[in-house]
């Protein structure tokens, strides 16, 4: 039980939690999606504007724990302005990395590596993946309401 909480709550996480980047509704958003973690009450709305196969803008409104808010904020920085194919690849890579059983190497993903600590906290993994679920849902335009039951 004795684990280092600093591993989970790294400064970069706390910083993004306190000062979430891109927390706004983008202008002329082309799609929205709502994500919900009924187990802890986390809620996030992700809005996107796609242009010429690029994720021109991404914004969100997140109400939740440090992990989910920081994950949303870090995500927005990581995907903004990227080609949609790359965004999709990134989403998959990140979701795969945090849900893989602890022990394996976490891929090099820049600031997102700050979220590697959640792998040691199985119940918190859903907090970290919720914004990414919502982003993919917004981009796929199919399922406008996702949950992490």
């Amino acid at each position, binding site marked *: *039980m*004795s*684990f280092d*909480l600093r591993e*989970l*709550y790294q400064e970069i996480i*706390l910083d993004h939690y306190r000062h979430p980047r891109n927390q706004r509704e983008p202008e002329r958003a082309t799609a929205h999606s709502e994500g919900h973690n009924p*187990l*802890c*009450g*986390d*809620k996030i709305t992700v809005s996107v504007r796609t242009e010429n196969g690029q994720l021109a803008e991404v914004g969100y409104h997140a*109400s*939740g*724990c*440090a*992990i989910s808010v920081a994950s949303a904020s870090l995500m927005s920085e990581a995907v903004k302005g990227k080609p949609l194919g790359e965004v999709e690849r990134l989403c998959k890579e990140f979701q795969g990395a945090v849900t893989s059983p602890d022990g394996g190497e976490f891929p090099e993903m820049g600031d997102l590596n700050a979220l590697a600590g959640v792998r040691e*906290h199985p119940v*918190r993994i859903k*907090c970290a993946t919720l914004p990414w679920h919502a982003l993919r849902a917004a981009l796929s335009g199919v399922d406008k309401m996702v949950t992490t039951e």
Partner: protein
Amino acid sequence: MVTATSFSVEAIRKEFPILATRLGDKPLVYLDNAATAQKPQVTLDAMDEFWRTSNANIHRGVHHLSQMATAQFDTARETVRRFLGARHAHECLFTKGCTEGINLVAQSYARPRLKPADEILLSTMEHHSNIVPWQLVAEQTGAIVRPIPINDDGEIDLAAYGRLLNERTKIVGLVHISNSLGTINPIKAMIAQAHAAGAVVLIDGAQAGPHLPIDVQDLDADFYTLSCHKIYAPTGMGVLYGKEALLEAMPPYHGGGDMIRTVSFEGSTFAGLPNKFEAGTPNVGGVVGLGATLKWLMALDREEVERHEAELVGYAETLLSDIPGVRLIGKARQKAAIVSFVMDTAHPHDIGTVLDAEGIAIRAGHHCCMPVMERLGVPATARASFGLYNTREEVEALARGVQKVKEIFG
């Protein structure tokens, strides 16, 4: 500070094997009793003994084991009767949980009776288990669910309740003790008011069972539900008390073995109480464990238990409200065993994780009470809930844990 009480929490703790658990280098501090309580040795022994010496299906057996099992099962029902102060043992039905008991009343009592525009009153602080079954039956019948408002302290607005009651009110559903706030509701008076308006009252006693002596006849409750796993008994059981006349007038809920008198393809006739509502093989082993648990609990000095728990709540409230940035949620004058709080800088979920690292088990979330969270303007709370085995030292550990949250989150 030493309190002069003959109730020995140290002795009680020894009866619960799990409380000796260490999580890494920290002792387990279990403050999630409102979710489920731990089980005393006497309960584990009773079940183990049952499986090893008496296991059989009940009621229909001529053989020795079946007779032993039946006798133990029936004795447990009588123990439940005493626990609730019911007039008859057959007014105490075994269900699979508190939730099933409420659904049974909604489907078997309410559904055949409710007409469009009939009203069901529920307090805003009900658990989802005492909201959703009524929403389902409202949809099925055209009846309307109306919330009874609460004030900022988490107490029912009694004036509003009086105004809401009217001749269309058919059912009132009230939680005895709120699982999210700890509020003890004045149900005896509220039941009398409902009766005066001609309504029938279901009391959700899930949280009252472990903390208060209950007397359904004194309360004059029409229906009263218990969640056994919260009363130190095993999972998989609830109790639904119903007044004999009401239960007799209700159609059966489940069809199946043991609830019938005769079956033929032309038609079937049903058994009397309690069998009519207990189709299928019951949770015999669990019920035997329940009986042993309630006997054990009733043998304790329950006033001292109440006093001990009240002291823990008071102490926790004092220590927590001394910490800047901590805000208590739920400040009812009558409270039991539950302390909900939020912090300026940390989300309840993060509070839970930090405390967990200290070996302290609390719950974070909406506690299956979304409407009360909405009403009090918080997305979630951190909740410490006490059992009779908790100590002042554990309350102090909780406060130290919250300090730790502040160290991390500022």
